């Protein structure tokens, strides 16, 4: 982890006292915030030998249902770390994180897996489709882990592919699809289990300009249909499509502005 050079060491005793306070205070704060996502004083600290690297240093923000949010920042700003935390691929070192009323900050691996399955829909820069599986099977994957029977799974996956206009490519494998088509398969996969958030990490980073616009158009449509979208990017023109932009620098929120 090379992100966030240590500018200052946080007071160690304050960390422990806050933690103790948080654990005793939790029963009182157990009423979930009304926001879809609620992050409170999130720290992510990596131990590099004797040094502590703070990738995130006290990040707090809320995301309401139906928002279209872009998180922007240069590489090394901590935005990937933040995305991993939002996506429940990782847990914060400190702080509270609520998603759809569930406290996820201290969940174990399997609980996180369930949250990823039900609450998060990932879209990656490099699509991350299974190469040997058809488009349909790729889209079915989250439903497999949700324990949905095959017939119902297939039906839902077909519907999801219809929604991204890929009904005629269902039995194609990723290497038989164009970049834009692959990303649309990935979007169908992200949405098939009706997650709370669509979380996209540089979704146009591997696409040409024209296809990028197509995909961004699709995101706009999905937002119009009521989906909550969080977009992580380093490109300002992509971020400008969102309705709210959070700028990250050195592990802290630099700016949080509503642009539409």
């Amino acid at each position, binding site marked *: 982890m090379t992100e966030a050079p240590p500018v200052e060491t946080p007071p160690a005793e304050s960390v422990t006292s806050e933690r103790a306070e948080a654990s005793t205070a939790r029963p009182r704060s*157990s009423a979930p915030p009304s926001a879809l996502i609620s992050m409170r004083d999130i720290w992510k*600290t990596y131990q590099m030998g004797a040094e502590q690297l703070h990738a995130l240093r006290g990040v707090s923000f809320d995301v309401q249902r139906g928002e279209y949010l872009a998180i922007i920042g240069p590489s090394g700003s901590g935005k990937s770390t933040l995305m991993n935390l939002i996506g429940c*691929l990782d847990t914060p*070192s400190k702080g509270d994180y609520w998603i759809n009323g569930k406290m996820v900050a201290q969940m174990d691996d399997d609980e996180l897996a369930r949250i990823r399955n039900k609450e998060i829909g990932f879209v990656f820069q490099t699509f991350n489709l299974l190469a040997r599986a058809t488009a349909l099977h790729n889209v079915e994957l989250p439903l497999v882990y949700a*324990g949905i029977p095959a017939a119902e799974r297939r039906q839902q996956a077909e519907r999801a592919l219809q929604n991204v206009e890929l009904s005629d490519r269902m039995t194609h494998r990723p290497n038989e699809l164009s970049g834009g088509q692959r990303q649309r398969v990935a979007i169908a996969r992200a949405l098939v289990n*009706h997650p709370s958030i669509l979380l996209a990490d540089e979704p146009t980073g591997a696409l040409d300009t024209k296809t990028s616009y197509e995909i961004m158009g699709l995101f706009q449509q999905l937002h119009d249909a009521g989906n909550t979208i969080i977009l992580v990017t380093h490109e300002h023109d992509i971020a400008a499509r969102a309705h709210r932009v959070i700028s990250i620098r050195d592990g802290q929120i630099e700016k949080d502005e509503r642009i539409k």
Partner: protein
Amino acid sequence: MATELLTEPARTEQGPPPPRPFGESRPRRRSRLPPFFHTTWESFRIALSSLRANKLRTALTLVGVVVGVAAVIAVVTIIKGLDQTVASTFSSQGSTVFTISKRPQVITSREDFLRFNKRKDVKEEDADAIARLCNRCWRTGIAANAQATVKAGDKSSENVRVRGVTLSMYAIEDTDIEAGRAWTDAEEAAGRDVAVIGADVVDNLFDGAPLDRIVGRDIRVEGRTYEVVGVAERLGSIFGFSRDNFVQIPYPTFKKVFGTHSSLIVFIQVPHDSEMAAAQDQARAIMRNRRGKTFRDEEDGFSLETQDVFIDLYKSATSNIYIVTVGVAAISLVVGGIVVMNIMLVSVTERTREIGIRKAVGASRRDVLMQFLIEAVVITAIGGALGVGVGFALAFGLALAMGFPLLFSVGSAVLGVTVSSGVGIVSGLWPAWKASSLNPIEALRAE
């Protein structure tokens, strides 16, 4: 990386979920089968497709398991067939017969052979003494053996067993005469040149002509002509040796032709196996007395045996075969298991990205663990099934070649597949655990 120490995450009950935007309202109709079932079935499908994608690798991985299981199946099947043969062979005489002879029927060392050779021959007088003095003995019979060339017409057959027997031997050995008859008391007493022949002699000398037309024809043994009065029922072969290649003639006739210098075998039968011990004690005492042995002599000077000798020998031989086979199988299964483990580790490394993707969309540690475990078990179960097939094929070939019955055992097939699947679980566990504990962030970054 610091993690929170709080063990009880504060989780709250959700109210009814808000309407889902994407598509229509979610048909959350859960199946009656547990989610576990669907993920297991999915794992099974993934396993098959990834094995298909690497056919050569899969085939090579299988070899160890196939060899191990095939060895066990082949040996178990062959020995079961032999057991059947042995049982049917020795049950005909049962445990009511014992023999007295100069040498035991099974000699395992040269020293023993030399020692037994120094013993006195068992003579007709010994048999007479037992018949006269042993009141516990029900029937006694004499058998003397020789090898000879037997001819009929222009045909000849070498190395035929010529047995000189008393008529009582037909009852003791429970010989069935398929055509014709045994000789009479009068013929035996007169030392007439009559013979009862085995089925192989019929095949070799009479081209398998109808049996009733063979009765009454002549055969020549060592230049002397005998009239065939009967044909014995076919006994079949054991361990590849035919038991039908014999000519049986009256003992007095045998004495005239082959002399009295060869040692005899005295057969003794009791009415019921509960009287075996008493009859053997009596016969042993009579014989020791005749050999001039006192109670201080350890050596009898003769061999008193039952058919158990063969059964014991057979059992010790087969148990050794079993031990060796189990050893071979164990080694090849261990090696096969290591190969499977190695391949699974390679597979986990190759598919790190895939594991990351699966975890990102909601696969739990257990889902990933099961996927790779099932893959390992599928490989070894296929290996086991192939091993069962190869093993049965080997046993079938040997059974045909050696002429014993082939007994397919479903139990050993099930055992073969079960054991090999067990090998899959053991050798798949570590790779699967490695896969399941991959960090999803790092796994997604792989390649």
